[in-house]
């Protein structure tokens, strides 16, 4: 029979608004963090990374914030567009890559 996967957390935002996707990581030894975007039918695409000696890094329309005290990572997307609709994964590297559960972002036109 067909297997049923876990339901991903979902975030719905209006086109043009800012999106914030959150991630709690588990290993205090992690020194490198990554955000990936996965569109339907495609492999994960690297968006932005941050090392543990930083607490903020900006890219084009995206900002990653790292709070090591509470082991929290967030991805902010400015002026969200329909093309941003995808599943977003955080990943941490305490030696090897460990992926978070993912958040599904849905942009309402």
């Amino acid at each position, binding site marked *: 029979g067909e297997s049923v*996967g*876990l339901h991903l957390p979902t975030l719905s935002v209006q086109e043009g608004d800012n999106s914030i996707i959150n991630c709690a990581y588990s290993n205090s030894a992690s020194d490198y963090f990554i955000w*990936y975007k996965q569109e339907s039918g495609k*492999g994960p695409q690297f968006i932005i990374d941050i090392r543990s000696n930083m607490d903020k890094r900006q890219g084009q329309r995206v900002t990653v914030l790292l709070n090591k005290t509470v082991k929290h990572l967030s991805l902010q997307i400015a002026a969200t567009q329909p093309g941003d609709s995808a599943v977003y994964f955080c*990943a941490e590297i305490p030696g*090897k890559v460990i992926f978070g559960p*993912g958040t599904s972002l849905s942009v309402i036109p």
Partner: protein
Amino acid sequence: SAVISQKPSRDICQRGTSLTIQCQVDSQVTMMFWYRQQPGQSLTLIATANQGSEATYESGFVIDKFPISRPNLTFSTLTVSNMSPEDSSIYLCSVEVAGRGPAPYFGPGTRLTVT
């Protein structure tokens, strides 16, 4: 960054059979990995493909079920052996590119359905 291709892109297979997935990179890379992504879930590392030697498997994955080859720096294969419906997943090849940090880059994936 490296361009990664996988073949086949998708397949429907009968239980008890085996499927070999190929991963080709357009440049030499330091590390190659195979991941599994079950329906609606996150990515799980199966193994690290080592050039010219046996792959390094993660807990819960064994060579008899997922034999891996890496004959050179740009090519690797993953075989899913004696398949069952529980093996229905997306299988993803990823690489680490020298000078680009430890973040792996991913291929398009192979969507496998076992009936």
